[in-house]
């Protein structure tokens, strides 16, 4: 360890802990993932084109991407409201609400899925009421978006909440004393300062929604071309022994997810630079 690989430290155990880390990471995560890349390279360009040009595949990507995007955008609005309440609101049971916010993280996705379906199906009180007023949720693309909102909401709240709590009130008071209305203070001072944390919450919610499976499949209805998400199509392909097709879909979904993450990170770096922090 003397070739300037690591800074000197009197703490022992670097070799052992690094060894355990690299070993377990490689065996559990990296080797299996590399199997995916190798397998997809066997499919070749023609394999990719053949699978990705199927209308059913294109429809699945479209519905997954657009639902995830809508869900993440809605989550930004809902998440800011809840985070604002948790930091600035005055309410006796705030602590309880705060604890409940993490429920989508702790709840198994299949359980969330059947619960949301039971709540928003046309034969349930709430779902029936919405359906009667021309807003059916379960078994339509809206159901997919709803499930994605459910799993993504805590990401926005938990990113915005600490940033809002750390926000110095001096700035708002300064804006106010300089004649800004409360609305102007909110849109010109507070929200821009929260933008980096809003963006990272958005990113996490969006990326989670793209790959979400358990909470979506029950409420989606899973009609090919209409409400079939990519994750489900991967399973369908696998069950009909089209391993190559499944691999191509998986690599494409991963790529879509990583490219989105990369672009949003780029945007985040820009905004951070622009606002000088």
């Amino acid at each position, binding site marked *: 360890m003397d070739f300037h690989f690591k800074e000197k430290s009197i703490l022992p155990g670097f070799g052992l802990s690094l060894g355990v880390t690299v070993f*377990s990471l490689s065996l559990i995560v990296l080797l299996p993932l590399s199997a995916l890349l190798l397998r997809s390279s066997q499919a070749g360009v023609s394999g990719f084109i053949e699978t990705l040009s199927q209308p059913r595949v294109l429809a699945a990507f479209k519905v997954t991407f657009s639902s995830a995007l809508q869900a993440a955008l809605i989550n930004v609005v809902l998440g800011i409201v809840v985070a604002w309440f948790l930091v*600035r609101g005055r309410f006796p049971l705030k602590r309880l609400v705060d604890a409940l916010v993490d429920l989508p993280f702790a709840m198994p996705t299949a359980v969330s899925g059947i619960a949301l379906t039971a709540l928003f199906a046309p034969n349930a009180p709430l779902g029936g009421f919405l359906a009667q007023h021309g807003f059916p949720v379960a078994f339509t693309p809206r159901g997919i978006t709803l499930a994605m909102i459910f799993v993504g909401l805590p990401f926005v709240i938990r990113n915005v909440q600490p940033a809002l709590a750390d926000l110095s009130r001096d700035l708002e008071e300064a804006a106010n004393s300089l004649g800004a209305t409360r609305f102007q203070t909110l849109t010109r001072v507070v929200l821009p300062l929260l933008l980096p944390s809003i963006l990272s919450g958005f990113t996490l919610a969006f990326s989670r929604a793209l790959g979400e499976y358990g909470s979506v499949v029950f409420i989606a209805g899973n009609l090919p071309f209409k409400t079939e998400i990519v994750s489900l199509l991967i399973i369908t392909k696998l069950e009909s022994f089209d391993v190559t097709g499944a691999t191509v879909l998986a690599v494409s979904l991963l790529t879509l997810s990583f490219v989105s993450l990369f672009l949003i990170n780029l945007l985040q770096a820009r905004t951070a630079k622009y606002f000088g922090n």
Partner: protein
Amino acid sequence: MKAEHSITRSSFVENAILTIAALLIVGTLILLPLLVILHAAFQEGFKVWLASVTDPDALSAIWLTLGVTAIVVPLNTLFGIATAWTIAKFRFKGRTLLLSLVDLPFAVSPVIAGLIFVLIFGRQGWFGEELIERGIKIIFGFPGIVLATLFVTFPFVARELIPLMTEQGSEEEQAALSLGATGWQTFFKITLPNIKWGLLYGIILCNARAMGEFGAVSVVSGHIRGETTTLPLHVEVLYNEYHFTAAFACASLMAGLALVTLVIKTIVEMRSNEQF
């Protein structure tokens, strides 16, 4: 406007609107689904609930889930502590890369996490032929479920510990070492007590996900009733066969686990706030 409060303090009306909006969001999106599970699970009475969760298929699903968790959680706790120790206490080349690689399973869709093990051990996978020849079953069997669960829960413990251990630094460990403690003594008497609450929360989260994982396990399990259906898969099977009360009864067990997770999280947060 006679009596002006502090300028940034919201008025009563504003606070009321904010509170109602937030309660509506959390109420419909989070609380209502939880209540629906409990209502549907107990709508035919406690006896039916008990019969549903003690049905032989349900019991074998519960035992399978506990078995998988008993292997996965200790392993990933060990790996998580090692990872956090490496990343939080030392500065070395490739540290940032290692940090993002540890998070990788979070960015991978659960279905893909299952697929990668099918590609290695499945019938058409790398070792598929050899495994069949020797009669070893990984996919559609217990080992496959363990592997997929190990993958999806890999980051949880490390994720909780890294920020905590980075913030704590290593002055206390250095003091112990300079006073003659061995490395292991330092770890067990200094580091471990310092990180115990964060570690507990990491383990609880890892445990909740290990017991509740659905997508990844669904791909590798093969849904063999009484053999490879974990509790979440059992819920799916019951639900798809229109045994709604039984499905929600088993789901209520996992909802209870999720609630326990949240309670422990709240306690851990209160404890760690007290420390500062």
